[in-house]
């Protein structure tokens, strides 16, 4: 007994010591924090959840929503989309004029804009440099195609940029907005840093890039000298939380302030009901599509592709799986585009018609593999679709690949089908050229290897005036939906949840988040 008493006493002492230690640490921590806070000024940090890590922060190579979210805070473009209306408004440009033949664009830059971290003032040379490096075939930019037709970039004066096109292009202003190839970099920074510039973005935006801790977080600091005014908080912390469930719990507990690109219907429902949490939603600029490789038999036959479109119960997917949190995509242009039309060939769920079409094509029971990426919901949505295809006699199987392997398989152009969504600005060329133009493969995302709309796409690019433009894009959509090399599965909707501490935030239609207008209460 005595032995036990001793042991107990010892344990108690140890516990007491441990408790004292914890109390000491608890007392020390707030003190430390207050020091940090004092050093930084007001010390407000806005914490945002990112679903995945960043990789490249060079605007000419970006290609991923996490990278785009970071760069959106660091860089500006000549023009930008108004967050709530998607109208193109000036950003770094003060004004611009277009020559009467529609080929020469002259921009005047805003005066007194400086790059971050003492990289000097913004000049026309930086703008010219930014576009030149995207156009340079040696640069290997993924966005060279976006600036196709831009034949001459000039900087006649420090505040004047002249861009010359080979022929009038109705959608050229879209290419100059603050997104991907439109972001303006510092010539001095890129030239001095070389390869290192890929992870040290120097821009003119409301936040400066501070620190990236691989796999855990990205820190941005407020740019007090931002030309539209300093942000209303001091630091932007982008925390990587892969699991949506974990992110939702973190938001509910107040460990993060903003959860963007919210996907799972259950989470949207759950956070919508949670107290002190607001959920914003908006139609996205993209659809998620099943891309059929038209060079592989029997997918080269439009009848087979139409049959597949009729066989898949996409309405069921939207209502049953997504619980109505996505919309029907009749073409790859969603309603957030000015050129949107629903006057296109439609493919209602009709297994009997699908069977009849397959019979007409003389195709019975071919093997069809859907390749998808191991990310939710793309690894899930293919399951019921494959079942639907089986029901009309197509031997559908599913292959889920890890992200890297998936990109490799898709880029090879040899897979029968893959799941692709073109996430981008409300520029109709973004999905249309990317998915349907011959020049978009290889390299690119026209893994359907489709070439049937070349002349119509050229006509749309050269259209003058809004009516002409709308009619030209309608013709493109009608053609590609009659041929269906790409079956739109659903039109994405964007959901963003934030705590009630956050104010002034606007949900854009880009799948990214831009926190500059936001402020933190309390």
């Amino acid at each position: 007994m005595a032995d036990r008493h001793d042991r107990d006493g010892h344990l108690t002492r140890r516990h007491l010591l441990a408790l004292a230690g914890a109390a000491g640490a608890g007392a020390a921590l707030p003190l430390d924090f207050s020091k940090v806070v004092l050093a930084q000024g007001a010390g407000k940090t806005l914490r945002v959840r990112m679903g995945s890590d960043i990789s490249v922060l060079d605007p000419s190579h970006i290609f991923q929503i996490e990278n785009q979210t970071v760069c959106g805070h660091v860089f500006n473009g000549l023009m930008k989309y108004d967050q709530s209306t998607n109208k193109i408004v000036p950003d770094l440009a003060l004004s611009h004029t277009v020559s009467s033949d529609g080929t020469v664009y002259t921009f005047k830059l805003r005066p007194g804009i400086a790059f971050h971290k003492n990289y000097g003032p913004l000049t026309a040379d930086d703008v010219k440099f930014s576009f030149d490096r995207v156009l340079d075939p040696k640069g290997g930019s993924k966005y060279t195609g976006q600036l196709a037709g831009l034949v001459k970039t000039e900087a006649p004066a420090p505040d004047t940029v002249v861009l010359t096109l080979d022929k009038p292009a109705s959608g050229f202003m879209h290419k100059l907005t603050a997104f991907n190839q439109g972001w303006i970099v510092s010539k001095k920074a890129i030239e001095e840093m070389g390869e290192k510039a890929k992870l040290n973005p120097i821009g003119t935006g409301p936040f400066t890039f501070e620190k990236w801790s691989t796999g855990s977080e990205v820190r941005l600091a407020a740019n007090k000298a931002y030309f539209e005014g300093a942000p209303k908080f001091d630091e932007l912390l982008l925390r990587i939380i892969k699991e949506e469930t974990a992110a939702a719990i973190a938001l509910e507990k107040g460990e993060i302030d903003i959860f963007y690109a919210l996907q799972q219907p259950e989470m949207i429902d759950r956070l919508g009901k949670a107290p002190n949490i607001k959920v914003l939603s908006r139609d996205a600029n993209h659809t998620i599509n099943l891309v059929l490789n038209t060079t592989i038999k029997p997918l080269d036959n439009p009848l087979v592709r139409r049959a597949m479109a009729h066989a898949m119960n996409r309405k069921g997917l939207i209502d049953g799986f997504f619980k109505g949190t996505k919309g029907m995509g009749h073409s790859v242009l969603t309603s957030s585009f000015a050129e949107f039309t629903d006057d296109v060939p439609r493919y209602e769920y009709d297994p009997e018609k699908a069977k009849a079409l397959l019979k007409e094509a003389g195709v019975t029971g071919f093997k069809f593999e859907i390749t998808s990426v191991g990310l939710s919901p793309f690894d899930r949505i293919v399951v019921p679709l494959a079942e639907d295809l089986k029901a009309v006699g197509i031997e559908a199987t599913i292959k889920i690949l890890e992200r890297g392997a998936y990109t490799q398989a898709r880029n090879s152009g040899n897979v029968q089908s893959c799941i692709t969504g073109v996430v981008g600005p409300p520029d109709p060329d973004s999905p249309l050229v990317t998915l349907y133009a011959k020049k978009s493969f290889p390299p690119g995302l026209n893994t359907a290897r489709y070439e049937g709309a070349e002349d119509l796409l050229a006509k749309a690019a050269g259209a003058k005036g809004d009516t002409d433009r709308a009619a030209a894009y309608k013709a493109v959509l009608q053609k590609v939906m009659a041929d269906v090399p790409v079956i739109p599965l659903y039109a994405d909707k964007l959901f963003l949840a934030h705590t009630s501490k956050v104010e002034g935030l606007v949900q854009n239609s880009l799948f990214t988040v831009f926190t500059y207008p936001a402020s933190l209460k309390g």
Partner: protein
Amino acid sequence: MSADDRASDLAVPPTPWRQLAETLRDHLRHPGLAIGTGLLALLLLVALFAPWIAPYPPLKTNMSNTLAPMSSAHWLGTDQFGRDVLSRILLGTQVSLQVAFAVVALSLTAGTLIGAIAGFAGGWIERITLVIIDILLAFPGFLFALALVAARGSSLESVIIAVAIAFTPRVAAVMRSVVLTIKPRPFIESSRAIGMSEWRVLWRHVIPNALPPVIVVATVSAATAILAEAGLSFLGLGVQPPTPTWGNIIADGNSLITTNPWISLSAGFCIAIAVIAFNLLGDGLRDTLDPQMKRQTGRGLL
């Protein structure tokens, strides 16, 4: 009972079948072994007859009845594609047991051979084998499986090969140490003395005598194999959808844990049952195959 009867009893030696029945009866007196065998037999029956006992086709989606709660029509409800969860779990038994048996068969065969040869041959063969075994043992098995599945692409074969390779060194290490204890025994020496070749000694005397402890290790590895498969499937690296496995059923239900917890929980329960069954079987075999342990633990549990 007449004296005649008793005489015939003495005269006729017990047939091998009777002997087997007696041993079985003796073994099943061990509660752990009996429960483990019983559960495993049940799982095996479920796996074999899954396509017939499943109330619905496990792959059939029904988008108008997604996430149905538990009811008399769907005992465990439906998943986000309207598939019957119970049917999927029943079919998932097939994959899990397939992985367990295949892994045991592969790692037992390879591990036994490698370990026996290393232990029996001695010298530099033993030293080299031992170094390789140690390296493989030091490498986390699941990490190795992850790497292999990433390299080969995810499929049932990849999972089996990966887990089997991870377990082979374990079996080999045990086999080698048991062989070392058998090698100096007199009957081995006698076999050599009557002119048996080394291979024959290894094959006829060393391996059979060293097997019991190795079988125990292999049985326990079956339980770990089930867990490894479930883990890989949960990460989306196991069997390709829509084939159900317990691991991917848990993954499917993961995001629904607050609203439809039964999807993940029921699959998790099955994994627990299978793992417990294999562990009980392993413990039981250890106790009953070792005459010294038998007296102490087997009866003690009763």
